[in-house]
């Protein structure tokens, strides 16, 4: 840690930037997934459970097969399965998607802890990083810019989703299901099927986000792995007004906020750093208060969403 001390307060800035890049990825993947699901007219509050189950499945698969990429795939598939479960239950008449989400939140975490017990001790192969800091001789800078390819995949995905929702067939149909189920039915689209696919896709991305946690950063599996990223990502979707590109900016902001605590600790501030650890949660609250309005409905919110009605 002496290298960080050498950089002085610049070390804090560097750590926050590195944190923004590193910690933002699961926020980004989960919030993109939730944007997809909510655009189809359903809320899946269970993504925290999906994230934790994805982290466990990804780690276990990487440990058992030796391939972190297979692990990531397993994380996504387990997430899609959770999405499918949510969708199938919500397709039944008179089922509330929020309640189902909360149930699956608890179910996912419980299942992950139950199945994940044997994987707490061992080490599994990790996902590789892109060494973007190799131009520097400074080890702190080098490690700060070891960026996961998933970060760039996330950015590409955000751009693709933003474009795709406006310019492709599936984008229009997805938004129609989310804005007017009647219109979708009138032209013969199955709203249930659209929402099932959208919830599965959202679950897949959240599972991959969990795989990032266990296979890249922090890069292990234990029961305290997620600090509520899956839940905060849902709040982040509202803050980003259901726009994938704004989800990316918001994820960077949340990632940076999460890095404040560890960063100030490395420069030797030992008092009150727990307060800094609370930064992302405080930020969530502050942003939701800031973006709320007593007079205006949430702009950009899909009309069929249970929270819009």
């Amino acid at each position, binding site marked *: 840690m002496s290298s960080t001390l050498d950089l002085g307060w610049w070390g804090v800035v560097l750590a926050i930037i590195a944190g923004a890049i590193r910690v933002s990825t699961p926020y980004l993947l989960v919030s993109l997934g939730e944007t997809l699901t909510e655009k189809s007219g359903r809320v899946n509050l269970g993504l925290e459970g999906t994230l934790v189950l994805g982290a466990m499945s990804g780690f276990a698969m990487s440990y058992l097969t030796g391939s972190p990429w297979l692990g990531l795939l397993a994380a996504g598939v387990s997430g899609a399965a959770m999405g499918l479960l949510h969708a199938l239950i919500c397709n039944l008449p008179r089922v509330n998607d929020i309640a189902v989400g909360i149930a699956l939140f608890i179910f996912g975490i419980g299942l992950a802890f139950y199945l994940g017990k044997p994987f707490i001790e061992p080490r599994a192969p990790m996902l590789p990083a892109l060494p973007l800091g190799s131009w520097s001789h400074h080890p702190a800078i080098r490690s700060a810019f070891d960026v996961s390819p998933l970060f760039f995949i996330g950015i590409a995905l955000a751009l693709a989703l933003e474009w795709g929702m406006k310019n492709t067939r599936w984008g229009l149909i997805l938004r129609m299901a989310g*804005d*007017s189920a*009647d*219109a979708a039915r*009138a*032209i*013969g689209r199955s709203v249930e099927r659209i929402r099932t696919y959208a919830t599965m896709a959202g679950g897949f991305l959240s599972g991959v986000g969990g795989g990032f946690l266990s296979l890249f950063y922090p890069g292990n599996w234990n029961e305290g792995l997620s600090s509520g990223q899956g839940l905060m990502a849902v709040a982040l979707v509202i803050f980003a007004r259901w726009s994938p590109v704004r989800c990316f900016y918001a994820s960077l902001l949340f990632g940076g906020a999460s890095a404040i605590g560890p960063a100030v600790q490395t420069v030797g501030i030992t008092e009150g750093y727990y307060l800094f650890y609370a930064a992302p949660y405080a930020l969530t609250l502050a942003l939701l208060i800031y973006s709320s309005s007593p007079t205006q409905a949430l702009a950009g919110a899909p*009309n069929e969403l249970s929270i819009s009605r």
Partner: protein
Amino acid sequence: MTPSPPEVEIVDFSKRFGAVQALDAVSVRFTAGRMHALLGENGAGKSTLVKCLMGYYEADAGRILVDRQARAIAHPYDAHALGLGMVYQHFTLVPQMSVAENFVLGRERLPAVLDWAAEHTALRKFMARMPFRLDPRRLVREIVPLESAGEALMAMDDPIARAGGIVVALNEYAGQRVGPDDDAV
């Protein structure tokens, strides 16, 4: 130019919703080029009849003849392919979407990737022949009950008042199928 519009006949349509027999062996013939009105009090089954014809519901029993040929209409697309369209009692538009997006969604075959420049041009050309002007980019929050304009048979489910419970089934002579799909480049 399409040939003359089809003659549509409904034979012995029945439809039951739970305990309610909405339709009980209903037969109607819509002659081409005529305007027909279905009159009845609320709950008489006017909407159900038209919705079964359009493939929104599936009738429990009965047949549909289009130009005296039996046709199966299990899906709104089937109705669309036969030149049957409907303006629903409650707007089936997506108010949060633009005029152009709503028009495009009404098509049975959507291209995987949309060419919005061409769609907007086609829509403007279409509207030049219509007694209204709308910016295709504007969001639909107003009355545009024309999503299936130019169909050979257009069923209007209470488009005027949306109160009195009148269903007009209109078999209009559409000499041309107007719509953004024809003009699309």
